[in-house]
């Protein structure tokens, strides 16, 4: 009830971003499917994006002039575009790996191990 009545601050957005970030890091670490690792990267980038938007918002601080303003939104758009580019290349590499090894298990990609 306390959370429902008091106004939302940057901290709350940062906690949600932290949950998304940690989920993405754990996803990257434990998934053995290469596409699962890619989804973890998307979650990490999304958590970072949430922080940029929160710091750029005028409505989450007592003094809205302290926010970084439009820069937060602009950087978030750049992050979205870079995430799209990263997903395209990583998916191409994954498909290449699948064509060459007939598997998407990243633990089997150990040909370079000395």
């Amino acid at each position, binding site marked *: 009830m306390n959370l429902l009545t008091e106004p939302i601050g940057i901290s709350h957005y940062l906690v949600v971003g932290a*949950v998304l970030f940690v989920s993405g890091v754990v996803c990257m670490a434990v998934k053995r499917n290469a596409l699962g690792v890619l*989804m973890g990267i998307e979650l990490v980038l999304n958590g970072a994006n949430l922080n940029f938007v929160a710091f750029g918002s005028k409505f989450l601080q007592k003094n809205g002039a302290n926010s970084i303003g439009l820069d937060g939104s602009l950087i978030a758009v750049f992050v979205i575009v870079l995430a799209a580019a990263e997903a*395209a290349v990583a998916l191409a590499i994954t498909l290449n790996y699948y064509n060459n090894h007939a598997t998407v298990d990243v633990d089997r990609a150990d040909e370079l191990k000395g």
Partner: protein
Amino acid sequence: MNLAGTILLAAINWHSFFFLFFALFACAFALAVVFTPNVVRMAFYLVLSLGATAGLFFLAGADFVGAMQFLIYVGGTLVLLVFGVMLTAQGPFVSIKTRGGEWVLAALVGGSLLAVLASIAFSVPEWQGGAPKNESVIAGVPVTAGVPVTGGGPVTGGGPVTGGGPVATGGPVAMAPAASAAPTSAAMGMGLLGMRVDRLEETNPLKQSGLSGYLLPFEIVSVHLLVVLIGAAYLARTKRRRAAILD
């Protein structure tokens, strides 16, 4: 009962309510992405999590970023990922199990990282609690406008609220934030072209040097995206010659 319910409704900060709704949605489905072994379900949960994050962007006032999140992320990037899932999810690759020891280690590292980040997020006093005028920005009708509703009941109370409530009581409260909650897309477009129309009245000379806009990063990211897409098409193409030789 009815009076208590309406007082409860009037006390709810609807900005906080919708924040909690979208935040729980996003976090729950992000955790579902981690814990489900099935890669097809992972893709679906990721769509829901990113869609809820777009809702959080809208709540923070970043309407253009929220729309781009839907269009590019959910509509483009994840469709790409789903195509990758469909191309590779065959037989044993639909669900590859993770060993138990790795789960324990990941939970340990991830939990401690989350604890550190959450404690840091609540350690700065400037980051806690927004302005009290927030509720009138998102809900459109300030809390004081809900008082006539409790007096006349929900059905008949709709008349006075729409008639004079928001204009008379909510006028001075809602006008100032409504003016500042303008759409951001035009200002962002000008920022990408190198003009910061949102900071025209910047008086601090230390900050004025940083108002050059984002034209060069915009050009760099455009060329980067072009190169990356050509490279991805080159990498993912079917290698007919080599297959013909092997046959």
